[in-house]
């Protein structure tokens, strides 16, 4: 449905998007994941034709979006970040206007507006003025707008940003429902959203694609790795010594003292380990040192960890980058 090749965008000397190449197959919900400022919105804006790429090719449903922007735009419904709308218009009027603007034939406008109101479950506010609606309703009006011309592709920029948990659930259910007969590309920086919604994830950081695949596969990239949460009572220093001495585990957080003093401090730590028996080893070591254990819990690595792994900013030194590449080349 979407084919992107070597997509690049410069704002002056700043490279917001650097050589992105990816496909979104028909019928999938694809999550576009990245930290704030990674270039997600810029990429979506180029896909939807709001911005012209500095370089690269975009094809939407087989139409070259740069050569035939109007045709390409007809195939997609877009909900920009923060969901801007005309506050002075009524919901129904607004959707009729948008339908006409998106070249829906006059005879079909009433029907299309009706069904998009229903799909986005905003029929009850069709006569209300947009400016008086709650954020959740406005977001859904934005979705109705994206749907009104019945495009095969939906591009949603952070569709759940700024909503309360109930509204988030509603919007997610709606997107899942819509995806039954549409392709959806949505951007987010919320990981559970990707795990809950998407068939596929594209992770970008600093304008570059750093990983792509199914949410399951991505988690698999760090499968075998586990995170251990530990809480105990004793001197913080003692915990540090005991845990630091274990070669099988790596301390990722702590140990830090929560309360108390001296021997009665409550200490927490997060550890990372690849050894499947790591929990037993930690338990044994703590017991041997005469410290008290309050909690020891093993967690499976979440997408959260994959994300952190892939997008944590390393110091941006061109030399370091180059040497990395060189090493890879040599390995190959």
């Amino acid at each position, binding site marked *: 449905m979407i084919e992107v090749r070597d997509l690049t965008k410069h704002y002056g000397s700043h490279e917001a998007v650097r050589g992105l190449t990816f496909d979104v197959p028909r019928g999938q919900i694809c999550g576009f994941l990245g930290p704030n400022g990674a270039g997600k919105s*810029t990429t979506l804006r180029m896909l939807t*034709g709001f911005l012209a790429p500095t370089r690269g090719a975009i094809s939407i449903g087989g139409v070259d979006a740069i050569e035939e922007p109007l*045709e390409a735009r007809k195939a997609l419904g877009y909900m920009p970040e923060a969901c801007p709308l*005309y506050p002075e*218009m009524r919901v129904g009027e607004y959707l009729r206007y948008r339908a006409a603007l998106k070249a829906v034939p006059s005879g079909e406008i009433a029907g299309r507006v009706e069904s998009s109101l229903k799909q986005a479950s905003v029929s009850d506010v069709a006569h209300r003025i947009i400016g008086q609606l709650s954020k959740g309703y406005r977001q859904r009006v934005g979705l109705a707008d994206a749907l009104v011309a019945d495009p095969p592709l939906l591009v949603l920029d952070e569709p759940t940003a700024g909503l309360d948990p109930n509204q988030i659930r509603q919007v997610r259910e709606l997107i899942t429902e819509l995806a039954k007969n549409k392709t959806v590309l949505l951007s987010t920086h919320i990981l559970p959203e990707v795990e809950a919604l998407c068939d596929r994830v594209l992770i970008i950081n600093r304008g570059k694609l750093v990983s792509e695949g199914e949410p399951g596969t991505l988690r698999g990239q760090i499968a075998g790795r586990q995170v251990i949460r530990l809480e105990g009572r004793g001197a913080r220093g003692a915990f540090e010594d005991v845990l630091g001495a274990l070669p099988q585990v790596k301390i990722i957080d702590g140990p830090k003292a929560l309360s108390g003093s001296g021997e009665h401090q409550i200490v927490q730590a997060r550890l990372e380990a690849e050894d499947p028996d790591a929990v037993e080893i930690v338990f044994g070591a703590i017991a041997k040192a005469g410290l008290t254990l309050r909690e020891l819990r093993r967690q499976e690595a979440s997408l959260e960890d994959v994300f952190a792994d892939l997008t944590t900013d390393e110091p941006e030194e061109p030399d370091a980058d180059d040497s990395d590449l060189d090493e890879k080349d040599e390995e190959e």
Partner: protein
Amino acid sequence: MRATWTILRREVYALFVSPMAYVMLTTWLIWCGVTYWFLASYFVGQQFSGGPQDSPLTMFFGQTTLFYLPLLVFVPLITMRLLAEEHARGTIELLMTAPVTETQVVLGKYLAAIVFWMALWAPTGLYVYLTSVYGHVDLGTVATSYFGILGVGVYYLALGTLMSALARNPIVAAILTFLVLGGLFLIGVGQFLADENRDLFAYLSIWGHMESFSRGVIDSRYLVFDSTVAAVALAFAIGALKLRRIEG
């Protein structure tokens, strides 16, 4: 064509749901009413020489240009929202990702401003009627007067549309438009001061415009001037939108 019409309709709607439109229409109506009342009073009891200049309507449309000063404020108020507000609200992203061209967007918005301009002047038709009840009205002169007013609108509103395309928020757009129109108005005053190039000054000033149109003279030079300025300003506005796609 259909997209232009759709944008025009929404824009006219947006203008007329805003309280500012009614403040403007009311203020303008009062202003015109008072001016016309003074002119009509002045003519009462005076002998008509029969020339077209000597009618309160001709005076109203052409000879009392200070009476146009509010337009220097109204035009920026009409045009400031057109594109700048879309930028300020972010709705430009919705507009420009719909299957419409920059030209359709600019034309739709500009024509909406023209429609509002005509609505602003429509009530003055009443003065024509009133004058015709109590005296003689040369309908040809009235027609050319309105034609001249439309010309001024075409000229001023295109500049306002351009400023609205350049600015990213309506207030800035309004200030820019006011400065440009105010500057042109002052240059226009030059036609009374300068010894040379008087014609040049006269083109720029709506004073010169309206003086000739209100006498029933359709001066094609003014029409060419108005439409040229409008075409250039709108072309720049379209260019500005296209540039935004590239510059971001």
